[in-house]
């Protein structure tokens, strides 16, 4: 391969361009040193950028007032899921007013395409898409989220309350 050298007169003035660049770099360096608050970058992963609550990221299973799962294991989310990433095993509850509940609710988050159809299909506001989106893990099995993670992970602080309450519905006679 032949290298074409550009030895024109104009090319010898490169130093001015470099110095100009250095000035800009130094300007930002000094600005950031003395005014850290206005810095545009983040110290990831120590600092994280939080999205709005309306962002559709990782799923959250909501809970009732007593802290138990709101989900009734109707399987509408699993039926509606285009990626087939939701797996629910239903069981009979001891309390006759609850009747049916999921003993296992698993979402394979690597298969999930975050379309939000599960949230739309849910008749009792049991599943929502939360604002979380940075969820790395060390191996594949960690990406299958179970009830413990979906409803009670630490940053949910004891669970998120569902809007649909059976007790209130029964009281109003619906």
């Amino acid at each position, binding site marked *: 391969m032949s290298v074409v050298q550009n030895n024109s007169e104009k090319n010898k003035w490169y130093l001015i361009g470099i110095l100009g660049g250095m000035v800009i770099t130094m300007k930002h360096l000094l600005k950031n040193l003395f005014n850290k608050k206005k810095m545009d970058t983040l110290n990831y992963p120590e600092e994280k950028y939080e999205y709005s609550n309306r962002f559709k990221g990782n799923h959250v299973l909501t809970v009732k007032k007593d802290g138990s799962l709101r989900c009734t294991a109707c399987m509408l989310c699993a039926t509606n899921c285009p990626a087939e990433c939701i797996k629910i095993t239903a069981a009979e509850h001891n309390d006759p007013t609850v009747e049916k509940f999921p003993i296992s609710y698993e979402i394979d988050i690597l298969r999930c395409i975050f379309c939000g159809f599960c949230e739309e299909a849910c008749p009792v506001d049991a599943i929502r898409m939360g604002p979380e989106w940075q969820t790395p893990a060390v191996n594949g099995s960690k990406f299958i989220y179970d009830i413990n993670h979906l409803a009670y992970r630490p940053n949910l602080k004891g669970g998120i309350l569902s809007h649909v309450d059976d007790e209130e519905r*029964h009281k109003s006679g619906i």
Partner: protein
Amino acid sequence: MPKCTINGKEIEVKNGTTIIEAMYENKQSIAHYCYHPGLSVAGVCRLCMVEIEGNPRVQIACNTTIAEGMKINNTSAKVKDAVKWGLDFHLINHPLDCPICDQAGECGLQDQYMEFGKYDPEMAEKKQKKHKVVDLGPTVVLDSERCILCSRCVRFTDEVSKTHELGLFNRGDRTEIGTVEGIQLNNKYSLNVVDICPVGALTSKDFRFRQRVWYLKDSETICTGCSTGCSVKVYFNKEGMFRVKPVYNEQVNGHWMCDEGRGIYKFTNKEARLLKAKKGQGGTWTELAPGAAAKEVAPLLKKAGDSLALVLTAQYTVEEYETILSTFVNTFKTKKIFFWINNKESFDSFDGLLLRGDKNPNTKGLLKTLQKYNVTTSWAELKSGLDSGAIKTLVVAGPENQAVFPDLHERIAEFSKAQNLIWMQAGSNEKLESLTGNVTLIPLKTFVEKNGTFINHQGLEQKIKRVTTIVSEALTLDQAAHLISGEEIPVFVPPTTETLVETNRRPDEVMLEHRKKNEFVFRRGTL
């Protein structure tokens, strides 16, 4: 023979036919809940409204007999409006808990609502609270709130099972289905009330919450629970079989089936099955492919000569008996073929409706084939042969449904006296796997995985079709018979492709035709 016009179509019906029956026969759709062709007419749901010309008001079709020249119509706006508001009344106290209701997906209310309803409810009053999750008996759970009081189940216990357990209690909107205190819904046909319930009020404890119905496929087959041979539908998906429901068959079972027959799906599922052939020698077992195991015993059987015997149970199809008998009679030249009769005492009993004491689907078929090959042996001959050591090699086509063989353990102990025991059956059995002699266990296919014919107690030949494949490597008795006689069976050989990567196929693996379209095995491609 009165003539009438239904929706513009002129038809002739028998005397005394009701309008709804005529519509059923002519495949016209009509909304209804309380009418069931197998039960008496109650006329309580008021949904099968039809307009008859010359009659100012709409009438119910189930309790009106057709008269000469009637002009009947159920597609007019008037009828549709009547059905729509009739449905509104049904739904006044219905809890609409479809998400947790097992009937959702096959519910009469859902279907009719989508077809005729679609109104905004105009009820201002609160819904009536009733009992939820009532334990009616060992098989059925009741949810009174969902009940629309069609009284089908009450009529069923009164007219078909004649056990009179269920009844309607209280009046008006407080009416509930229930049993008298201290009495349970406990009869041999109790699960039929679940089938005829048009809503989710009665649900089966066995099937409750196990699957949503829209995840299930269905296919028609024959019940192998007893020699009645009811026509049934099996419901299954990738995870296995889930339930059995009756299909109308005028000659055999009518609309019903027994509770016992509904359990036959259990032994076809993978958990209960023998998945690999097993070869035992002095208590140590080695696993191998079923086809390979069957091939391996071929020389042993050929050598055996006169000391070879075969025990058959009446749980296989006629075609399979034909092959195995011709193998033994023609190839091995032995007529030591024995018919293993389970529960001898109750073999001929009959409960008057459907249940028979003969718990095999194909006793008639086996006897017919034995007669054809002129096999006349008695059980005592086998016993004395095993005791004296005249029978050294014993091939057993064991029971598919092991639950109906109370003498199974006893027989296993008895047969294990033979020097070489070749036991072919679908299900796994601990007792068999704890034998210490020379034993080969070969897995067979169950009735849902093969084609064939069953002959029921009346001598009626009924064909079964393959529904699905659960254990893909298992053999049918037909294939096993060919393999143990040293013959080859047509196998599916996948086209060889030149690959640099080694395939994971064993040299002794028998590739069967079904394997390529088996939906239960997910084969990942080679790299």
